C-alpha cells in the first residue's frame, strides 16, 4: 500500500525566515510526486511535479527536490502570502492513475 507522510504538521515562520517541508513516501513504482498549495476554503492548486531522484523544480520562492525516499519543499525568504497548507501526493503503480496524499503541512508566515 502506498504511503505518504508529511512533516511537520504545522510551521510558523517569520517573514524572511527560510525553511523546508518534508514529504516521505513508500510506493511501488513511483510515476510522479506532486506538490499542491491549498488556501482556506479552496481546492488544492498545483505547484510542481517531480519524476525522478535528483530532479528539482522552482517557482518564485519555492523549490522542490526529490530523492528515492522523500521530497522537500524549500521556502526561501517567505512572505505572508506564502501562508497556506502544502500537500504532497504520489502517483504510483502500472497505470499511475490515482494520487495518494499526505496529511499536509500548514504554514503560517508572520510579518
Amino acid at each position: 500500500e502506498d504511503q505518504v507522510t508529511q512533516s511537520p504538521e504545522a510551521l510558523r515562520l517569520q517573514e524572511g525566515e527560510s525553511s523546508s517541508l518534508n514529504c516521505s513516501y513508500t510506493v511501488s513504482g513511483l510515476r510522479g510526486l506532486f506538490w499542491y498549495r491549498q488556501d482556506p476554503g479552496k481546492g488544492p492548486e498545483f505547484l510542481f511535479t517531480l519524476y525522478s531522484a535528483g530532479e528539482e523544480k522552482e517557482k518564485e520562492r519555492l523549490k522542490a527536490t526529490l530523492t528515492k525516499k522523500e521530497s522537500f519543499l524549500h521556502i526561501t525568504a517567505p512572505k505572508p502570502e506564502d501562508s497556506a497548507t502544502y500537500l504532497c501526493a504520489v502517483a504510483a503503480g502500472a497505470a499511475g492513475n490515482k494520487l495518494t496524499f499526505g496529511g499536509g503541512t500548514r504554514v503560517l508566515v508572520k510579518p
Partner: protein
Amino acid sequence: NAGVTQTPKFRILKIGQSMTLQCTQDMNHNYMYWYRQDPGMGLKLIYYSVGAGITDKGEVPNGYNVSRSTTEDFPLRLELAAPSQTSVYFCASRSSNQPQHFGDGTRLSIL
C-alpha cells in the same frame, strides 16, 4: 474556461437523507476524481473515472456511488447520509500525463 465546477458549495443534510454532489469540467479531460478531506487531514480518494462509462473505487468508497455518462460530468451520490460523511468533498480532473485540477469543494454537514 470555468475549469472544474462543483455544486452546491454548502449543504446540510439530515441522517438518512440522500443527495447528489455535482461536478462538471469544461476542459475535455478524460480522468475525473472524487476526494473527501476531513479537518486537518489530506485528501482521500472515493471514486475515479478514466473516461465516460468507466468508474472504479478508490480508498474510501463505502456509502457513495458515482456515474460517468458524459466526459464533462461526474456526480457523486450519497444514498443514506451518515454523520461520518460530514466532510469537504473535492472533485478533480486531468488529461493524460498532466496534473489534476481541483474544484473549490462542497462542504457537507450531516446532522
